[in-house]
């Protein structure tokens, strides 16, 4: 009997998504009292659509862990902007672009996509998606630290996405 377990996790992700969407509705309507009753229509409809378009995977997203990562991510993405601005304004244009391949332990599509998006906002790196050899990362300047930095970043995000320690990928 695996059915009850499956439906429980489905209910949990539905509740999580409904809470997020409800919050979005409140913010979008500016907390206006007149718009409040419509939440009974919009949130269930949006939750159903979201479950249909992106069914929850076997590894749940830990929202609180993700939120906890946000301040650090903001600081690093500011550094990313400063780095690009510095290179853009520098008279000699210090850009030596190159590609590196990075193996990733992110196993499902959404986790990998978010990891790629995060990478693209960090200093000097830009993700161009995955292939059989892992992720393709474009660097403004290939240095020895790039791989280490990406590894640390991946470790942080992998915990928020409950990715297991297992190596390789199972094409989720």
């Amino acid at each position: 009997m695996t059915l009850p377990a499956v439906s429980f996790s489905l209910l949990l992700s539905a509740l999580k998504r409904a809470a997020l969407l409800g919050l979005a509705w409140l913010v979008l309507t500016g907390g206006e009292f007149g718009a409040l009753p419509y939440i009974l229509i919009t949130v269930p409809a949006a939750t159903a659509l979201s479950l249909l378009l992106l069914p929850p995977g076997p590894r749940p997203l830990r929202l609180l862990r993700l939120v906890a990562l946000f301040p650090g991510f903001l600081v690093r993405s500011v550094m990313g902007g400063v780095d690009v601005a510095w290179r853009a304004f520098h008279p000699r244009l210090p850009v030596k672009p190159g590609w590196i391949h990075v193996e990733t332990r992110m196993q499902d599509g959404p986790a990998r996509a978010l990891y790629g998006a995060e990478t693209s906002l960090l200093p000097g790196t830009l993700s161009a998606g995955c292939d059989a050899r892992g992720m393709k990362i474009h660097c403004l300047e290939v240095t020895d630290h790039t791989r280490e930095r990406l590894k640390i970043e991946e470790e942080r995000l992998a915990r928020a996405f409950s990715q297991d320690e297992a190596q390789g990928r199972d094409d989720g």
Partner: protein
Amino acid sequence: MSVVEGIIAGLLVLGVFFYVAGTVGLLRFPDTHSRLHALTKADNLGLGFIVIAAGLHWGDGWIAGKLALVWLLTLFAAGMAAQLVARAALKAEGGE
């Protein structure tokens, strides 16, 4: 000019700085993928500073929430779009 107004003015100047940095990078960087770096990182940082300035100026919690939503959405979209455009550009160049 009060202290808050001074901070707002400073944030606006920073915002313009990063927008201009994005444009300069888009014009000066040598290849398509490097330009994509400039577009993805600098512009959204500029928008971040402007959003904070607008939030301070307004001083309203709901408005601040909506401003945050605008910024989060652009950040998320920028990160995702960057990967997609990077892949498409690679493909257009005929792979690596």
